[in-house]
């Protein structure tokens, strides 16, 4: 793509109202992004039918916006520079080959970090609800840490909850993780995840979006983001999803795109996992029953480490240099993440000792407290 066509491409893609489908039709109809902008300037664009079958035309406000973009095509490029973003178009060799399964692949993928993380040979998506239970949060972290330890790039959506737990566990295990966000990079995920975002990038991960930097999140952007999330993964694990959850949507996309879908089942009647059970009942998703079984299933599908079955050298027991109290608290949270109150009851230790032990485990990176629940973290995720 020559430089002026690329500038026009970026300018057209950044126009609000021009989605992947419209973009594709316009470029096909006029023979290039530059031609589309020219057509806008001389009035042909407004008269052109963009959907041949229906004869539908572009809404006039979109035509006007394209006109504005055509007047200063450099503006979009300047914005990208200001945000420090790289871009990939389907014409670039580095454009994720996994997007080949998409019907309407994004004309431009915007990103921070290392674009090579998108082309890694092994990528696993971990998704779930924004309001997980402590156990769901711990499971997401456990899955992410496990697959990251076996060389996978962990793909998720940077949302509060399961997504955050998956990203955080991956960066903690020094793995690579890609966040696919549902807005432009001007609004990169929830504010509470700003520090996490920096850690993702520092660990060689990436934060990508199909939306131009200033595009706000809206009702439709997250479901559309989900199709990119599942496409970028070889397999998707749905950890915890109530009956109305974006993770269900991601699961459906994954199946449509031919990705392996694993769903952690829950107890019948439990609203926190009602969506998971429905996915298992209504789709060919496989139940997630354990990490070893996940490895087995992935290996059978030909997904995963190049040499199937090679386990990393057993890490030293993370509890080896802990005192007796810390050890029993660690064992308790690895078994069932819970609040401090429950830990006191479970261990039978005095509250002060439990509180101190949890502090020490946090200092060692073996535990973290989220919404009042003490969750296992780091090497402790490999137990239980």
């Amino acid at each position, binding site marked *: 793509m020559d430089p002026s066509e690329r500038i026009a491409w970026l300018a057209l893609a950044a126009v609000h109202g021009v989605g992947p489908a419209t973009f594709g039709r316009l470029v096909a109809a006029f023979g290039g992004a530059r031609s589309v902008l020219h057509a806008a300037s001389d009035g042909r664009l407004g008269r052109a039918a963009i959907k041949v079958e229906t004869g539908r035309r572009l809404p006039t406000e979109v035509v006007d916006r394209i006109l504005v973009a055509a007047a200063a095509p450099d503006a979009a490029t300047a914005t990208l520079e200001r945000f420090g973003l790289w871009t990939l178009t389907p014409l670039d060799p580095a454009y994720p080959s996994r997007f080949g399964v998409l019907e309407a692949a994004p004309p431009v993928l915007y990103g921070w970090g290392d674009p090579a993380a998108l082309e890694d040979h092994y990528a696993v998506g971990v998704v779930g609800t*924004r*309001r997980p*239970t*402590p*156990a769901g949060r711990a499971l997401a972290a456990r899955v992410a840490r496990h697959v990251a330890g076996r060389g996978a790039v962990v793909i998720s959506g940077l949302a*509060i909850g399961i997504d*955050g*737990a998956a*990203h*955080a566990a991956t960066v903690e295990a020094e793995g690579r993780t890609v966040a696919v966000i549902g807005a432009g990079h001007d609004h990169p995920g*929830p504010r*509470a*995840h*700003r*520090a*996490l975002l920096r850690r993702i990038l520092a660990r060689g991960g990436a934060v990508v979006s199909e939306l131009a930097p200033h595009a706000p999140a809206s009702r439709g952007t997250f479901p559309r983001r989900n199709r990119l999330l599942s496409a970028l993964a070889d397999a998707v694990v749905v950890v915890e999803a*109530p009956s109305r959850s974006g993770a269900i949507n991601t699961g459906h996309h994954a199946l449509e795109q031919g990705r392996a879908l694993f769903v952690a089942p829950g107890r019948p009647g439990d*609203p*926190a996992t009602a969506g998971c059970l429905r996915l298992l009942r209504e789709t060919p998703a496989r139940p997630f029953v354990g990490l070893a079984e996940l490895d087995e299933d992935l290996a059978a599908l030909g997904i995963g480490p190049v040499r199937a079955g090679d386990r990393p050298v057993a890490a030293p027991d993370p509890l080896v240099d802990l005192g007796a109290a810390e050890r029993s608290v660690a064992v308790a949270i690895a078994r069932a993440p*819970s*609040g*401090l*109150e*429950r*830990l*006191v*009851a479970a261990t039978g230790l*005095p*509250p*002060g*000792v*439990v*509180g*101190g*032990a*949890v*502090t*020490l485990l*946090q*200092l060692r990176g073996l535990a*973290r*407290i*989220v*919404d*009042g*629940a003490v969750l296992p973290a780091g090497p402790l995720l490999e137990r239980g």
Partner: protein
Amino acid sequence: MLATLVTAVVSGLHGALVRVEVDVSPGLPVCHIVGLPDAALSEARERVRAAIRNAGFAYPASRITVNLAPADRRKHGAAYDLAIGVGILVASEQIRAGGGAWALLGELSLDGTLQAVPGVLPMVATLARAGQRRVGVPAANLEEARLVEGVEAVGLDGLDDAARLVAGPRGRRAMSAARRPVIGVSGLPAAGVAAPTGAAPEGRVALVSGLEPVDLREVRGQPFARWALEVALAGGHNLLMVGPPGAGKTLLARAIPGLLPPLDEDEALEVAVIASVAGLLGDGRRPGRRRPFRAPHHTASYAALVGGGPRLLPGEVTLAHRGTLFLDELAEFDRGVLDALRQPLEEGSVVISRAAGQVRYPARLQLVAAMNPCRCGYWGDPQRACCCAPGDPERYVRRVSGPLLDRLDLRVELGRVPPRELLGGPEPEASAVVAARIALARERARARNGGRLNADLSGAAALAAAESEPRARTRLAELAEAGALSARNVHRLLRVARTVADLAGAPHVDEAAILAAAGLRDPAGDRLGAADAA
């Protein structure tokens, strides 16, 4: 003829002497009150006239002038009624002042009986300082008046009592209160007498919104929160409890009055003065040794919490002086009202400035607050789904400003107690057992800190606490680095650690105390305080 009586006015917690001069002279029957009276005082004219007639005296059909001196000081309230009434009787020569110089306080009813008035204690104290030795007060205020040493206080039921008192010895038979020897603070119930539970009247004085004291034996489960409460009370640290409805936050808070040691003599007098000014001591309620426990409703206004109003009355922070201020549903309080708590929490006093003047009230209180984790209350609950919109829980906790959260030294998250534990489980400790440990730890702290609780330690003194324990210092450095603690938070952590060590009977702040204190610092994790959730 002219009659002069002595009485007092209260502004803030301090009184000033006021002379009531009554002149009855020939002329058209009219009564003037001069000397900066407020509305309640101007109405004294009507009350006094009716009271005099209904008490069986004659209201002089002459020109009556009442002067309240000094004339430049603003006077308010109805406490001058009695002095004005008796002054009129003396000036109209219906009685002769033969009983010596009595200062008189009290509000008159139309039937001639006396009503309790606020502020009797500081007024009597002012009169005593001015050399006044004999004071007549409404019988309902007698207990507080008697706290002042060196004053003979007599309780009166009505205008006729007062008339007999002023007239001399012959009239004193019928008086309601006996001529008891003057007693001072020692007249308070002895330390320890205040029972930890039950409906002792002084316990009720301090409780608002109908909260009855609770024994810890009745609080099942929540071992961690119980311990946090113990640490908070032992060190005077501020405490925040976060948890779903029904977790036991309010129940734990209601146990506080029975867990704190009684007030010492000086404290009891301070508290009694405040209660007197606030009018909490009328109706014969006795000032006690029980520490105040104030639980204002979350609709409380700025003036109700901090103090103010036209008469610059003390607010809840002052009424909780030397005791506990319990704010239930912290996030539901008006944000401006909450931020006004920062000054008293930091300085131990509050200054109220209005056009009417400026007063400083003491407000050395311990703040105990409780809130739900979100609007519906079930955020993070393992069983019940939270029905708030995404982002709402974060917004909910952000209604409490960062600086205020920062001043809450201890934060505990309470889960719901499983029914199994509610019905069975081990018998919880009784308040008396916990109270004994708290008292012991407070004694240790006071002995070491020169009478101060650990929460009032200076930063340098807090740092010195961990001086001799190298492992504790290492941990502290680790924690400071990991949690990015500010210097102020390091001091706070050390103060709490000092209390943990005091409860354990440890001479120094050791590693275990540091870790345990840190465990009490921010279990609420990401949403309260630390920026990074994950």
